[in-house]
């Protein structure tokens, strides 16, 4: 059985989770989803819609669902965001959070294992490396990890940092973010180089870990070309997460 793979809603339809769900509806290979609320204003409408989404089975086909918390907020907004997420997010949906956004770690401790800290790209000043993640998990001991393998490659193209993160924090990983992260830290479809690089550490990522694709396809117009691009990206991600060579001893 292939690894669960699906998209971040923001990768398919900018600030429009409903539109993204509609795009994914007919594609059988999409088996998981992440609801993106990267901008503060997206969070409340999304959370309000959750009961409706569940009631009408629009998300029944997904074997894994997560939600991405806003990536930029001030200390005053933080309390409101925490309250909203605590009140309205289904408990079995992991909440992905950028560590550099946190003002009050105590507030986020309330989520326990539901919180998934994401490793950061090179523009950020924290959360980029295995060592930097250590200090974050000291403050959020129960939190899990969303391994953004594209961020890890952008920080270190030899994938040695990804290797170190996987070696040190593999027991925390609950999902992946997969994309080509370019030099401007934007999420592009996977290149051949990225696929080859990801394969070098793929043996360390258990098959049960779902892959959320962040490659930006939102600009593509509706039609066969977009459907093909989505299908191609899923295939590329599955290839990238298949080890080239199985080591003698399992991870």
């Amino acid at each position, binding site marked *: 059985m292939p690894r669960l793979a699906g998209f971040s809603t923001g990768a398919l339809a900018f600030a429009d989770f409903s539109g993204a769900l509609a795009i994914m509806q007919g594609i059988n290979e999409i088996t998981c989803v992440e609801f993106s609320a990267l901008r503060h204003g997206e969070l409340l409408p999304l959370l309000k819609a959750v009961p409706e989404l569940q009631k009408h089975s629009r998300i029944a086909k997904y074997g894994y669902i997560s939600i991405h918390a806003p990536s930029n907020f001030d200390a005053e907004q933080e309390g409101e965001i925490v309250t909203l997420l605590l009140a309205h997010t289904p408990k079995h949906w992991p909440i992905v959070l950028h560590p550099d956004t946190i003002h009050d770690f105590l507030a986020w401790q309330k989520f326990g294992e539901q919180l998934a800290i994401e490793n950061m790209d090179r523009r950020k000043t924290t959360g980029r490396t295995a060592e930097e993640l250590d200090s974050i998990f000291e403050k959020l001991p129960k939190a899990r990890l969303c391994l953004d393998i594209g961020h890890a490659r952008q920080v*270190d193209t030899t994938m040695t940092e*990804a290797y170190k993160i996987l070696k040190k924090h593999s027991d925390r990983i609950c999902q992946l973010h997969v994309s080509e992260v370019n*030099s401007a830290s934007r999420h592009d479809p996977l290149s051949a180089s990225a696929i080859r690089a990801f394969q070098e550490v793929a043996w360390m990522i258990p098959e049960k870990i779902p892959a959320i694709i962040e490659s930006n396809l939102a600009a593509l117009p509706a039609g066969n070309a977009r459907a093909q691009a989505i299908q191609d990206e899923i295939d590329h991600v599955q290839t990238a997460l298949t080890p080239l060579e199985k*080591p003698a001893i399992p991870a």
Partner: protein
Amino acid sequence: MTVMSQDDSAPTQNSIDLLAQKLGQATWENIRNARVRAQEMRIQYTGALEGLDTDDTSIVVFGSLARDEATEQSDVDWTLLIDGMADPKHMDAAFTIQQKLDEKKAKAPGKEGTFGNLSFSHEILHWIGGEDDSNINTTRRILLLLESKPLGKSAAWERVRNNILHRYVTEDHGLWVPKKERGVPLFLLNDIARYWRTMVVDFAYKQRTRNNKGYALRNIKLGLSRKLIYASGMLACLRCHLDISDKDWSKSSRDNPQALIDNLRTTFDMTPLEIFADTLIRVEYHHLLPESKKLFDAYDKFLGLLQGQNMRKHLDELSIHAMDSDTEYIQAQTIRREFGDALLKIFLGQDSDLRDLTIQYGVF
């Protein structure tokens, strides 16, 4: 990977201090002073050069400043390492760097053109061997691994170093085929050895082209700081064989080389002296502690000698014809010999665990 902060210079206890403690009576004040001075200088220059680097460029220093062996007379060997988009403004940044360093009364780099200008990751990374791998290119690449530190933003420096190591490890066919229990990265070790031999040959070249001027000081440096760089590089390669666990070796392959890269990167994050101290302090090298003491005692005396402005000047100006009867030079030669003897015993002594590896990988 340690993403280095702007200030990596807090004088915390390192492996040299721990080895000194283990040896009891050793103090190595000159080594300690040189480290503190180097760290202070790096802080000072980092502040002066703030804003001249980017995520695509790192200002990198080499030599004694990077090795934590600075004296008041140390050159500031620097380069603006570029790993990103081509930009004519890089040259402007390089001019400004030298101007700011001049304002700080930093001693300018040597005349060879290896430092004090721009370096490009493409050449350093892709031209390993072959016609295009010039003396300058080899020097920059090997010294990026063996003795370099970024002032300020470190991202470009880290990327280039990591990718150099990736090439040395993944393209080392003999390391992976046939599959071995463990090995030594010979492609890398051979390039480090090539660099060392080039340095030694260039020593003779400079002797001729400079008409023996500065011979005595260069001779002492060759047998101490230059030899230390080479020996630390060899030790770093041998440590892949010694340090990496059976489990990690068994999981490693040309397609999964990260355990080796990580080991090398961690080792090269240390200064050459720290690599020795970090190795020799281990229980399995306990029997080499007397030689370790001799090695560090000799190097401490060498740094003490360089820290004395008069002595350095004296050696720099000493005529080649007067050397054999010159008391100071004879003293310096004795230090050089003590250091060399200790190195020999550490790598090739009958009771050294490094002996077999050195013979197997370091000779032919």
